[in-house]
């Protein structure tokens, strides 16, 4: 039985940038333990010699010609922004106090 503690979930939530209530953490830790037990089956069959598949198409890099083409105007690109100023996305403070 995989055991995901409340502290584990709290750490994952921090990494995923989601605030979570104590109730949510508690609930998710028991749910995730059950789900992980169910999905851990993948470890039963995957031998050393089997290569991983990350993508269904055998593609490597896909390039296009380096030419200008039409794109969104600044107004269009900013049209959904929660806050904007002088043709820029306006965001809360990112860096802490030095």
């Amino acid at each position, binding site marked *: 039985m995989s055991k995901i503690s409340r502290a584990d979930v709290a750490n994952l939530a921090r990494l995923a*940038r989601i605030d979570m209530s104590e109730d949510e953490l508690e609930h998710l830790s028991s749910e995730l333990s059950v789900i992980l037990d169910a999905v851990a089956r*993948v470890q039963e*069959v995957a*031998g050393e010699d089997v290569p991983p598949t990350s993508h*269904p*198409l055998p*593609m490597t890099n896909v390039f296009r010609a380096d030419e200008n083409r039409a794109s969104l105007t600044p107004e269009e690109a900013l049209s*959904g922004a*929660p806050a904007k100023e002088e043709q820029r996305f306006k965001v809360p403070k990112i860096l802490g106090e030095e």
Partner: protein
Amino acid sequence: MIEKSATEMAAALQSGELSSVDLTNAHLARIDEVDEKVKAFLHIDRDGALKQAEAVDARRKAGEKLSPLAGVPLALKDVMVQKGIPTTCGSKMLEGWRPPYDSTVVARLKAAGVIILGKTNMDEFAMGSSTENSAYFPTHNPWDLTRIPGGSGGGSSAALAAFEAPLAIGTDTGGSIRQPAAVTGTVGVKPTYGGVSRYGLVAFSSSLDQAGPCARTVLDAAYLHEVIGGYDPLDSTSINAPLPQLVTAAKNASVKGMKIGVIKELQGDGYQAGVLKLFNESLEELAKLGADIVEVSCPHFEYALAAYYLIAPSECSSNLARFDAMRYGIRTGEGSAEEVMNATRELGFGKEVKRRIILGTYALSSGYYDAYYGSAQKVRTLISRDFEQAFEKADVLVSPTAPTTAFKIGEKANDPIAMYLNDIATIPTNLAGVCGISIPSGLAQEDGLPAGFQIMAGAMKDDRLYQVGAALEAALLSKWGAPILSKAPKLGAK
């Protein structure tokens, strides 16, 4: 007229017997009449639809040569962006957002003169099998309003079954087109991965997501597939090769001499008896038409669900990082950017989305990556090999689409594992990037609800889905005497 197929509507438009404005108005009236009960739509673009219809009528009147589906209405899953039209993905995160551009699918629909009626409900960010995970409201199955219409594309399937639209667009990451089709008595196609552009499709799991056509007949789906499919330089995973001839395949419906492989592992335990009975009856019809039915084994399919519920959450945890409260969508909270982000993602995402982001974050985290995500990727290889071997023995593979008919709203809402089992027969196709279709196989004896017959073909062999699907559809139609949806409750009768 609204109960006709899209192909019949198109013929009436072409002959001048009907205008697109009238046809669009008839569907808008139907939506007014029944959508209070069905709740298929999140947004209805009445004015936009009528404007498009007027433009098509004018072009036709001017003698312009139009695309076969010009003037026919369609319902668009709300995960596909359409310029200026609210696009929420069924999430509070994007409430009020109006995209500044058209997805390639929408651009092609507009170019073909298809009328977009509005946006359909879905499980939040396409995560779910019942449309109960929509942050707005659940959609109801037109066959029984207390039941789910499938998911994640339950709005699109319900709109078709309730005659609110003859065509719809869905997206299928693990079965979100095919399972809703199965439980509503409609047709849904997951094209070959890379066959329909993902540009402007809000990403859930990029290596699995595939947009495709939803309709009430196989031929209608083929026409729609030809409109939206084909190479798109804006999607770097788009296949740069011509689409197979899908409409021709649907018109040349025949299975004589074809080898049809029944996948041993996709039946038995967990499948409803009535669903299996209908599946076997469909097989008999195919045999009567001259197909050679063989059994094939895909031994690793039993691991597909487990692999999927590691790969899809892993990719979603990365893809949904874009919802950061900075560039679009809602913003809430005070303080630093990180605090605002944390608070916004707590408020904007629903339970299932959070569950999957956390699961994916775990599966990708250092120390667990190899055991979970890495092993799942290896299973993906084994499943692709199973398909390759099976396609050496058969031209197409078949199974029931979903293990059961539609369940009650609320029945599985608190049991994620039970919910995930709905996709057990559809997920392998996505993992391998091959294509699949679901067509109605009849009404199950236990509950009188529709079930689906799934046909799968190799990559870029989508024409076979239409060829076999249309043959089976015709055989079942002559057996039943009327289309399956004629047996659905008449929702409009007040």
